[in-house]
């Protein structure tokens, strides 16, 4: 009965899409609050960099990155599921999606880890 797609049922993906969606929504408000209400005085490059370079924030940002990449890649995969049916084309498009997903994750994590205040 199954022509295409992996043997997984898709239950986890359905569930986690919603979980990650809620997490992203929460972090969006958090980001907004922190940027516009929690900083004293004018926003400067130094203040932002100090915050972004702290280990706590780096950890938070990496978590946010993982959820965001998962949510985006899963979402695009669903769009591909709707419109692309030929096995060959699916292998190509989903393969590209995996590559882009891993790339964003890697580059993103590297960037976050290497953030430091210019001295």
């Amino acid at each position: 009965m199954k022509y295409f797609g992996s043997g997984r049922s898709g239950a986890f993906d359905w569930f986690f899409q919603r979980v990650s969606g809620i997490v992203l929504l929460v972090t969006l408000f958090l980001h907004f609050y922190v940027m516009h209400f929690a900083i004293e005085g004018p926003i400067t490059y130094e203040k932002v960099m100090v915050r972004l370079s702290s280990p706590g924030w780096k950890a938070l940002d990496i978590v946010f990155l993982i959820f965001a990449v998962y949510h985006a890649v899963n979402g695009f995969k669903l769009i591909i599921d709707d419109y692309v049916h030929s096995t060959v084309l699916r292998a190509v498009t989903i393969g590209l999606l995996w590559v882009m997903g891993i790339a964003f994750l890697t580059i993103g994590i590297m960037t976050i880890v290497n953030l430091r205040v210019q001295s």
Partner: protein
Amino acid sequence: MAEKVTFKVFRFNPEKDKKPYYQDFEVEIRKPGMMVLDGLNQIRWEMDGTLAFRRSCREGVCGSDGLNINGVNMLSCITHISDLKPPIVIQPLPSLPVVKDLVVDLTDFMNKFFLVKPYLITYSPPPDKERLQTPEERKKLDGLYECILCACCSTSCPSYWADPEYLGPSALLNSARFILDSRDEGADERFEIINDRHGVWRCHTILNCIEACPKLLNPTEAIGELKKILIKKKF
């Protein structure tokens, strides 16, 4: 002078036509409360006897006459002409192969119904009398057992159009009818079938099915119930 309404009807005769086309008919309104099916019959019997469509009970219980009318799936026998904006465009149910004019091939739809094991499964021997079921347990079946297999919901679902393997709202609603029946003992067998990329998880809650169902059933809600049960089992 009786009022006339224009029906734009989808025509296709596989023995003659290469492509489908639309034909206009002027239907006369002869009595108040005239249904679309009455109009179609008038066309068949007085204007063009070659028009083909399915119909039987003419009161919305058999499910033969599911059609796409002015872009929405409904049963032609319980749709008042006066509720529709003319010209009334009548097409066969979307995404199914057309046999002729407004008749579609329901094989795929029925196959998906057969797949979910839509019959009571029991392993324990039956009692001498009826199996007992409280009114509360019986109430769970309300909104599920009334499905008339008209295919309006499944053929209105974009996921059903996109994925040839997707079971569709009707098959999933019917599987819920048995999974939630307190007398049934085959829930696990059915979960195996519907807990699948092409089963419940293909539903993206588009909600077209609720709009289309002529019996006012809610397939999305039924599918939601199934998803909840599956997630609970998993985590």
